[in-house]
């Protein structure tokens, strides 16, 4: 068999000998090259460089190639770092909880209460309309709404509900969480909607046939089957919140901190190795969180 195949290929190549032919091995490498270059150039090398720089020495003006560990010991030894991490985790948890709640119900409404596929698509596109403007603009547009003389406060004072403007609406943790929820809910809606659409509607009928109430159908059938979508949404939201600095800076008015904001500050002081060490710690933490989520929920069916 093998000899026959080789003699046949030999004949075929003999027939086309005049043309320029690449060897099959080279063709495979060429086909894999573009993705390798992109992933290598934009993902692998930057991560490697961050890792390397995190061990370098630095002063107020320059970095010195070296192998020192004080970037890590300083980062992990400072209570400011720990507080900032806790604060970031708090944001991540709050935003995750709120986006999961809102995201699930929006997806549920779209998947189970809208009857026609056309209407589902229209409403889903409506959800994406805010994404036609930039993150920063959507964030800043909260300021006239939440500010001291903003829409909410003037409505409340004019209605006589409060005597003086509510202070915690803007430049507070509340404002940060609100803006993040606004920015990231769609990342939760999309994967959950995707899983809900794949649930066989006869499963709901079968559950009803077995005597399940609407609530029991939800808790026993729909939510368990929506878990992979929730996990993917959770990964999106958690990683986005953990890496966010602009929302925290703008919406807290500089009163709250996040890990990424801390890194940004270090970089503006030209403390690149310290920021790199911080980045490595954050990367490890986020990867651990993602690994944890994947251990709890099997998302392979969704990919």
């Amino acid at each position, binding site marked *: 068999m093998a000899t026959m195949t080789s003699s046949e290929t030999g004949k075929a190549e003999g027939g086309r000998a005049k043309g320029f032919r690449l060897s099959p091995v080279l063709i495979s490498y060429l086909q894999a090259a573009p993705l390798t270059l992109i992933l290598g150039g934009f993902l692998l090398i930057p991560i490697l460089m961050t890792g390397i720089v995190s061990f370098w020495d630095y002063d107020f003006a320059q970095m010195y190639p070296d192998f020192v560990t004080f970037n890590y010991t300083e980062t992990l030894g400072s209570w400011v770092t720990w507080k900032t991490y806790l604060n970031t985790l708090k944001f991540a948890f709050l935003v995750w909880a709120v986006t999961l709640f809102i995201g699930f119900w929006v997806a549920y409404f779209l998947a189970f209460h809208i009857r026609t596929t056309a209407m589902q698509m229209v409403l889903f596109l409506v959800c994406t309309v805010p994404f036609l403007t930039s993150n920063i603009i959507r964030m800043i547009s909260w300021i006239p709404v939440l500010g001291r003389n903003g829409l909410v406060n003037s409505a409340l004072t004019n209605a006589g509900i409060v005597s003086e403007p509510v202070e915690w609406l803007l430049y507070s943790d509340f404002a940060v969480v609100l803006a993040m929820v606004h920015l990231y809910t769609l990342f939760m809606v999309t994967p959950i909607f995707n899983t809900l659409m794949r649930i*066989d509607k*006869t*499963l709901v*009928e*079968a*559950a*009803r*046939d*077995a*005597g*399940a*109430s609407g609530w*029991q159908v939800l808790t*026993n*059938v729909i939510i*368990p*089957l929506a878990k992979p979508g929730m996990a993917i949404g959770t990964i999106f939201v958690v990683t986005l919140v953990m890496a966010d600095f602009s929302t925290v800076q703008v919406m807290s008015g500089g009163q709250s901190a996040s890990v990424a904001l801390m890194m940004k500050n270090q970089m503006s002081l030209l403390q690149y190795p310290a920021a790199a060490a911080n980045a490595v710690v954050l990367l490890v933490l986020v990867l651990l969180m993602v690994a944890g989520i994947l251990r709890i929920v099997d998302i392979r069916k969704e990919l």
Partner: protein
Amino acid sequence: MSKAAQIDIASVSKIYGTTTAVHAISLKIPAGTYCCLLGPSGCGKTSTLRMIAGHESISSGDIRLGNAVVTDLPPARRGTAMMFQSYALFPHLDLVDNVAFSLKMKGVSKDERHAKALDMLKLMQLEAYATRRPAQLSGGQQQRVALARALITDPEALLLDEPLSALDPFLKIRMRAELKKLQTSLGITFVHVTHSQEEAMALADLIVVMNDGRIEQAAHPRMVFERPATAFVARFMGDHNVISGRVIESSENMLKLSVPAGGEFLATNTGAAGLTDSADIAVRTDRVRIGEPSEKGLGFTGSVTNVEYRGSSVKLSVNGAGVEDFTAILSDTAFFANRVKVGEAIPLCWNREDVVVLGRLKH
């Protein structure tokens, strides 16, 4: 084991927007009957089943199960259980939890419902797979799980929506026998939707042939096969030649038809319903012989258009006397004793008792 209930459907209609899927059908299914709803797709058989189950609202009319009117009751309170076409097993639960699902919904404690579910799985010979997920089972096993899940509620009637359509032909025949055995041992009413007349003949005590949202005939399989009520039934059940023509003579026990541009055919007038000046008659394909008819009108001469060898029998297609594609099934011995070829002209005949006058539905 459990009590069976009679199902009484009283002029039930189903209207979707402007289309009527089921036209005021009435049907009594006696307790403990294996009933098959048979018809082509879109004939309203599944809508009827789903209305009995309570998964489809009833536009008008009433359904009674036993002595209770169940028209407006939710599915779980009707005493019916449904087995879905795709089985609709919960993919995230193992077999025990799938089977115990309805008990969990009722709030039965975990130990009790698991014990009951295991008993049910034992009955279906699936106890070895109790901790597996549905996706890890074969089609036949999944079907048995679906049966176990439906039967654990101890229903008075089991409703099956094309239960065998997802199985391969061999498994289909095996599961068919199991269904029949199960129905006999449980003694409850089964209502089974199918589009396969073979399946319905093999299983049913009562075949309900439906077409276009109406019941064409509801009778014992033998009755449906030997005395089809309408041309639709005769054609759908197969093994009948349907001849349509104008009535030219009609007396107490005799009916004479004339086919346009063709011959005349004779039948025994049974007073079938809905006849005016035209009528349909059916001739069993396996009762047709080659030979001169004993009486004029009980046969014709036509040319053979096709010969199909089927092992124990041979199928001839014959055109002639204004009749297209008339089928005659001859036994192999009869055929090979006197072979005919395509294009040959042959006389065909049959006996008077093999002709059935078909009625027409009043719409």
